[in-house]
């Protein structure tokens, strides 16, 4: 049961606010380490939160239908908080994206063992919601993700 004043509930609310505040630039996907860094910046040194705390808070919020989800990648985790949850294909591609930073349709198809058409469809959705951006000055066109782009995650 959730009580108002529950540590994880309050943390969850702070996280939601952070996700809403940053979604204009990352499309609703944010690295767990970025969440930790930003939230801990505002907390007293003796009151810091851990990634376990974040994961627990997301789980509690899901009970309330928040639509937030933690996804593990090879080396880290990210949270998404957009309405209309991401499909397996979306999260799989994002896991790949977190590892490589940017991708082309070919490189993704080859790494994931998918058809190019499946990659294209998946990317289309991510482009539409601003999670992925396309770079037409790369040959062939490449796709980047602000949520996993270092200068973006550390920007004010």
């Amino acid at each position, binding site marked *: 049961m959730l009580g108002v004043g529950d540590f994880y509930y309050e943390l969850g609310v702070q996280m939601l606010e952070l996700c809403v505040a940053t979604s204009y630039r990352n499309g609703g996907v944010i690295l767990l380490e970025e969440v930790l860094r930003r939230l801990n910046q505002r907390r007293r040194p003796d009151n810091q939160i851990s990634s376990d705390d974040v994961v627990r808070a997301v789980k509690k919020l899901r009970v309330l239908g928040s639509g937030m989800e933690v996804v593990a990648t090879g080396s880290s985790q990210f949270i998404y908080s957009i309405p209309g949850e991401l499909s397996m294909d979306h999260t799989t591609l994002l896991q790949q994206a977190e590892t490589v930073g940017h991708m082309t349709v070919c490189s993704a198809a080859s790494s994931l063992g998918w058809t190019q058409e499946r990659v294209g469809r998946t990317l289309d959705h991510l482009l539409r919601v*601003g999670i992925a951006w396309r770079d*037409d*000055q790369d040959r062939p066109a490449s796709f980047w993700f602000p949520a996993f782009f270092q*200068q973006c995650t550390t*920007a004010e």
Partner: protein
Amino acid sequence: MAEFEWPWQYSFPPFFTLQPNADVRRTQLDSWCALVVSWGKSNSVSQIDVTEASSLPVFKNNAISRALPVDGIKVVLDELAKRGNLEWTDKTRRRGYLLWRSPSEWGQQIYSWAQSTSRINNVCTLYEINQGDESADQEFHGLDGDILLKALKTLEVTGKAELMDFGDNQGIKFL
């Protein structure tokens, strides 16, 4: 002058490609407009010429080999014009004044300076205003002549000044 701090978007290669989705593009244009205005202010850029804009550092980041294409630059400049930060010099829309401050904001700053330097009811030349020693510490020092004139005209309209012509020179009497 402190070195201009580029925002994260400037290092992000796709920033230099106009994004296909309308909502994402709107966010992207917000960032482009903010960047051009703050860069212009930091570097005292008062005019942008569409045909030369491609070589401006703001539209071209050599470190990542990306440059906003000319039609992208035109979209950004049109957006700046819509937001009142750019004023085309004529209908051809080839050149525009970059207004990181509106002419009336400049006018107010100049008038305050005139008050604090005892210039009210005195005549001074336009040169004194944007190039003279006494304005060296002012933000409007070095202001482009055409924009200066627009700024002073806003003062004229509100009865705070009177523009004067002395043949070769132009002067102004603060009231």
